């Protein structure tokens, strides 16, 4: 290309870009201009069956359109900051108990009046409501409930090897011996993810001293107390004893560990009740199937996470709202947004959750058990929903610095670069320094 033709091409390219940009500037117009037709912008990182949710809602409300955006979690947390402060942000957005509620709560519409008017105050699980409050104000409503403290296992492998479901570490180690001898890994675990490491730690400490960790989180107990150190030592044991295979510290829970679990490469995985749809319902398994090459033909069941100390009771469930929906204070479609919120947390949206195998936020809807692939899963699911009425506490640590410190401590101990005692000292140092 000679210089002259290049500059001509360049000029036309600039003209094209400029005109497109101008048009684009006009295109970012306000969402609800015409009378009667409103758009609700919905931002999420994790929505269950969004297609059906949107279709059902729009069918029931023909004058409202849902503009749905799905982000990965990291992208969501980055984009939501500027999204909520700009004028073109979301109307309904997702939050999670903990730092998201603390920091984005002030940008959300207070929902207390809406809650009373709609009767939600009586119908929604109290934990679901309380974990989504900020300084006494309701800033979000739960989408569905979930809890950790469980381990899911491949019943087909255990049956085939004649291994019993372990209830403590001693039983687990001997079970793992048989499982590993048959060529499987024992506990698939993505130790790269701080959240799942924290779930396991909470499962350990809630067995050793139920509920004590919540005092430490609030600064009323020292993390260097023997029970917390024992829990950290049990965590280390999971790695040194081979229950968790080598290489776990570089694996992510999703997709690596979960993929290994689905492909029958590992017998156990430490996930919570949110894992039920993807492993126990036919529709959910079909979705999981799309992400792995091996055919999923095992039966999966859940059991309490084994107790670290032989003879102790395993942990109970801990959790709350898996995530929640908030309405932006800057929304220009408030009525439509509240209608959508009602659908999601109180109306047919809850039926969609329940029929999919999730535990709904409202207490008067039961989880469907008609789509399971094995009848043992019916009792399993019913037990999960019942236990959700007696939660020991939350899954998320409400203080970001403390959560980060604990996550780092768990990762270092898992890698063997820090001793459990030193790790707990580090956590205590951070815990003492934060303002609550």
């Amino acid at each position, binding site marked *: 290309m000679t210089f002259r033709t290049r500059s001509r091409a360049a000029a036309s390219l600039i003209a094209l870009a400029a005109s497109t940009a101008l048009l684009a500037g006009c295109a970012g117009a306000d969402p609800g201009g015409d009378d009667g037709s409103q758009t609700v912008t919905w931002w999420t990182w994790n929505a269950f069956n969004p297609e059906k949710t949107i279709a059902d809602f729009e069918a029931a409300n023909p004058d409202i359109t849902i503009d749905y955006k799905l982000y990965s979690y990291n992208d969501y947390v*980055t984009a939501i900051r500027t999204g909520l402060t700009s004028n073109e942000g979301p109307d309904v957005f997702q939050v999670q108990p903990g730092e998201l509620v*603390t920091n984005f709560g002030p940008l959300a519409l207070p929902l207390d009046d809406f809650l009373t008017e709609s009767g939600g105050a009586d119908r929604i699980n109290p934990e679901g409501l309380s974990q989504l409050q900020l300084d006494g104000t309701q800033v979000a409503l739960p989408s569905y409930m979930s809890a950790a403290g469980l381990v899911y296992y491949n019943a087909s492998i255990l049956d085939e090897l004649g291994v019993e479901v372990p209830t403590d570490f001693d039983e687990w180690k001997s079970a793992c011996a048989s499982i590993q001898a048959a060529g499987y890994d024992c506990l698939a675990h993505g130790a790269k993810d701080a959240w799942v490491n924290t779930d396991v730690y909470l499962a350990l400490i809630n067995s050793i001293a139920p509920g004590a960790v919540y005092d430490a989180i609030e600064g009323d107990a020292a993390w260097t107390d023997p029970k917390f150190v024992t829990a950290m030592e049990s965590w280390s044991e999971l790695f040194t004893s081979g229950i968790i295979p080598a290489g776990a*510290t*570089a*694996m992510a829970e999703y997709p690596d560990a979960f993929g290994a679990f689905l492909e029958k490469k590992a017998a156990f995985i430490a996930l919570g009740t949110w894992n039920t749809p993807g492993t126990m319902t036919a529709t959910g398994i079909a979705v999981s199937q799309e992400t792995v090459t091996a055919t999923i033909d095992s039966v999966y069941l859940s059991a309490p996470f084994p107790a670290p100390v032989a003879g102790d009771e395993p942990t109970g469930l801990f959790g709350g709202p898996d995530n929640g929906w908030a309405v932006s204070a800057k929304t220009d479609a408030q009525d439509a947004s509240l209608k959508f919120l009602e659908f999601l947390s109180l109306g047919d949206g809850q039926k969609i959750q329940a029929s999919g195998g999730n535990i709904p936020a409202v207490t008067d809807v039961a989880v469907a058990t008609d789509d399971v692939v094995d009848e043992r899963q019916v009792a399993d699911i019913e037990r999960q929903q019942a236990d959700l009425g007696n939660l020991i506490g939350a899954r998320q640590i409400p203080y970001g*610095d403390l959560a*980060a410190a604990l996550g780092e401590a768990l*990762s*270092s101990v898992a*890698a063997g670069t820090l001793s459990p005692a030193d790790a707990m000292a580090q956590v205590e140092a951070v815990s003492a320094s934060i303002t609550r």
Partner: protein
Amino acid sequence: MTSTPTASRGAPLRPGRRIALSSYLYLVPALILVVGVVHVGIVANIGYSTLDWNGISPNGKPVGVANYVKMFTDPTFWVSLRNTLVFAVATIALQMIFGFALAVLVRTRAFLRGLLRTLAFVPVVLAPAVVATSFRFLLTPDGAINGLLSSITGQPVDQAWLADPSTALAAIVLINVWQYTGYSFLIYDAAMGQIDHSVIEATRIDGASTWQLLRHVVAPLLSGSHLVLIVLGVISALKTFDLVFLTTAGGPGTTTQVLTGYIYKQVIDQFHAGYGAALSVALVAIALVFSVLQVRLSSREAR
């Protein structure tokens, strides 16, 4: 024709006032954009670094230099700084050596050198997410790389490259070298193309071997490229984020945490935008030192 007296090499020929002004015009477009976007950003960050702010609420609490004090006493800051510098030195050295070697190899008569020239750049083009995820699979204890090593050494190799704190950083360095050697290669390729063949011929006629040719003639002639690659290498190593975040996320523990990853964690996960800004200012300061060094060294070179 009388010979025009020339000043030192490269200096302008007695510019008149009019010419000097128009010379500045050539600088204007670049300066407007860079200063208006990046320098404004740097100043803004200096401002934020004096606040205790979560990055979202309209008012942060002014805390003076508290964030900087915190930074100097923060062990994770020093660990991430050290990791970043180790990463920088290792990747720059390896990329330059391999890039240089490739630029030489495509100028031999070896078979398939054309393919090499094209392929060398392909890894550079790939999205960091794809490269990071692929290598995560390749570097597992039962992954393809261990398989290859096992067949070469004849002994089973099951090193968990990214999970083991003693090898994680080295593994990340190697991934980066694999991806970006093509970058150095291209720069060296362009520069080698500028070398006057007569110099090469003369050295050959004097009986120099290829190795002597490379070491005493070619490499020195490319010193401008060396400098460019070092500065670019340092600054891009300082800004490396995706590779580390997507392979190890700074783990295990903090053994692979780099400065940008730590900034991200502080700002996004822990909502400390003020402290994150202070860390950014530290990063900018280091990068600035290298930029100034580069300008000094290269303009001294040109004289």
